[in-house]
């Protein structure tokens, strides 16, 4: 297993570099100029040719593509993600300053999603075609259909403006976290709920469940030990992917609730063609994707003992 993890981590480095380089490549050849975008935002009007020329010179943007790429590669190998064109601050600091907020929101909303999705999904499967099942399907449909920006504003209007229970926006206390986490968690819970139900139904039809029942095991044991553990595998896979997305920031929720996470800063960086920010953030977010998927792979071995990553080596 250790060897497998080491191999995956080595691949992670290639994935990170590849993702970061690809994002730079796409933006480099996409229309738009960082000097123009950033100066227009800073000045409030179109920059003059001199101002554009000075910006390009200051940030080495006149260098050919390959030179810019090699400069970036040199920096990366020296663990330097560069400096943001917009803020003048080191990219790593920009990320680290915002990551705690992103992590907090991602963790809480995933927790909310799981607390809703897993019990409701299981109950829907156990009571297939009951009122509960139909209701949960309707709730899931609503959850998937409600855009975050709409749900977020509705929650603010009722829970903040009308009832005064939670602040409209901001970061720092538990009460600030409630509305954004519910907004994000509800959207995540809906597909997870459906997946849990479908997976549970699938597992319940398997021969080993019938065998377990015929051996005289209690229904409780059949469900929780044999049913749920196996049914969780696709759910965990989905969660792994979602965790990667969440750690990359939730732009809409961050914007509505003024949540100081990495997502909005990255998207603003994309609009401004802030190359160091885009490359640096994508690099780190790619790492999160790799790590969350690795964690999922490891979890598989605990959920299903048949899955072994070191079998080939033992042979």
């Amino acid at each position: 297993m250790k060897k497998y993890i080491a191999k995956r981590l080595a691949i992670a480095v290639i994935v990170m570099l590849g993702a970061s380089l690809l994002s730079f490549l796409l933006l480099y050849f996409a229309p738009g100029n960082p000097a123009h975008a950033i100066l227009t935002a800073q000045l409030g009007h179109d920059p003059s040719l001199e101002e554009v020329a000075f910006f390009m010179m200051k940030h080495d943007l006149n260098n050919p593509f390959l030179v810019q790429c090699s400069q970036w590669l040199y920096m990366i190998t020296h663990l330097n993600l560069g400096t943001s064109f917009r803020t003048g601050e080191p990219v790593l600091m920009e990320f680290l300053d915002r990551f705690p907020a992103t992590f907090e929101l991602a963790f809480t909303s995933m927790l909310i999603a799981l607390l809703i999705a897993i019990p409701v999904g299981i109950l829907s499967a156990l009571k297939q075609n009951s009122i509960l099942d139909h209701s949960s399907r309707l709730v899931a449909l609503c959850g998937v259909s409600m855009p975050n920006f709409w749900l977020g504003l509705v929650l603010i209007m009722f829970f903040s403006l009308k009832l005064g229970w939670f602040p409209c926006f901001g970061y720092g206390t538990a009460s600030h976290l409630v509305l954004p986490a519910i907004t994000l968690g509800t959207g995540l819970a809906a597909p997870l709920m459906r997946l849990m139900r479908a997976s549970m139904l699938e597992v319940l039809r398997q021969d080993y469940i019938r065998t377990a029942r015929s051996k005289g095991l209690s229904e409780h044991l059949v469900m929780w030990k044999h049913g749920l553990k196996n049914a969780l595998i696709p759910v965990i896979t989905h969660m792994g992917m979602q965790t990667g997305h969440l750690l990359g920031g939730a732009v809409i929720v961050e914007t509505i609730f003024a949540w100081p996470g990495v997502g909005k800063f990255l998207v603003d960086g994309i609009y401004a063609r802030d190359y160091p920010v885009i490359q640096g953030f994508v690099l780190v977010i790619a790492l999160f994707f790799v790590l969350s998927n690795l964690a999922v792979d490891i979890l598989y071995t605990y959920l299903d003992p048949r899955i072994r990553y070191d079998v080939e080596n033992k042979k």
Partner: protein
Amino acid sequence: MISSMMMGCLDNSNQESASSSVQADATTDMQQADQVLTVGAQKDFKSAIEGRTLIFETLIGVDKYGNPLPKLVESWDLSDDGKIYTFHLRKDVVLHDGTSFDAKVAKFAIDMSMKGASYKDYVEIVKIVDDHTLSVIFNKYYDTFLLDLASEFKGKVVSPLAVEPEWDPNGKIVEYVGTGPFKLVDYKKDQEAVLVRNDDYWGTKPKLEKVIWKTVPDPYTQIIALKAGELDIIGVGEHHSSIPYIELEKLEENPNIDVMIQSFGRYQVIEFNCQKEPFTDKKVRSAFNYGIDRELMVRTVFADVTEPSYVITAPWFKWGPDNIKNGYMYDPDKAKQLLAESGWEDNDGDGIREKNGEPFVCELIVPFGEANADVVSVFLQAELKKLGIKMDILTLESGAAGDKKTAGEYDMYVHHSSCLPSSGDVAPGGKYYSKYTTWEYAYHSDELDELIETAYSTPDDVRQREALDQAWLLLQDEAPCIPLYDIVKPVAFRNKVHGFTFPATMFETNLQEIEIR
């Protein structure tokens, strides 16, 4: 749109709950004693010019017409040949870190700002005459220098000790230390900045003790937070205001909220590609201008929040077109006649004019994020259809739109006119001056260049005005763009906030007179 519908529903059902009113009243009472103002702004404090002007001041001020005013420079002299500016500095100014503002600090400010500014090519030397006198010697007269020094980006005074390395004009600002009415005491990225009154301020001391700048990117969240009493004022932290025009009526109806609206002379305009058929033809450009009912647009699209514009930029600017008596007033018959004179006729009766067998189809590029551009472009499309012109709308991400503009791959482009402290579209560096512009495909001519050069190469106000008058006549006749309406700036605040006044430019924030009562 969905958001505004939701806001409407809420307004219709119940203005505000008892609990939030109680909360708001409690907040009011508490803040009354403290003189604390919570500002809601879309941008992070350090990213917003409007926020920075509370900390950093400029050497020169400017009034709403574009006349330079004394600020940290108390007075100035200009030599007869227009090449030497001598600045006499205020003697009672102290920076937030205790450093005295003197000629060395002022020279540092100019050296620092000059790096990316247009005037650097014209400055020969910046010379300290004595502790409070500074000379800037130019190799030729540079008319817009004082306006450049009135811009936060091109002329702010920063403590040389707040730069790393200290006193290095190429250094990086590491602390926000200026001479302004407020001092920055706490800052959290993308969250808030806390500013306290600068008790040593040389000018009118603010009545507020503290300003909390809260970053709230979504305009609808800002509005709800203002209604809930979590914010005291919104719209002040952006030069184009965060408040959608469509929300103003409902905000004005709210008994706890006051709204103020100000024009800064910036107009939304549609720029033509004057180097591409059919917009090389002056008659076609004029026809578009006469064929659009701006009164109707302002009434139906903006509920009369703003005013239509019939000239290229605000006539009340110092260099503005106040000599233009007849703007592009709505005259659809004249528009149709001009199109017919240019050879555009609807011969096949399909409602679209043709010339040489080609239908009149054009494209409007809308850069994403340009204020109100989506509704305005749909209105234009309908108006042009009445003239027999089919206009397609292409909304592009602003970077992609900018590239199309630079490459000349557009027919029409949604943009806006210049405003203070920039020196205008008819100035060196402006849209219509061919030598320095980033608008290569806008209207240009040798005659216009000559008039602009004459206007901006003389310190003689009378000669400058004469040349500008001619330039405006020429431009109004050539119709290089379609001026549409005045991009007014609305600001909304809770009615405990008293004494708010707008500054001279849309990029400044003026909180000095505000009092919480």
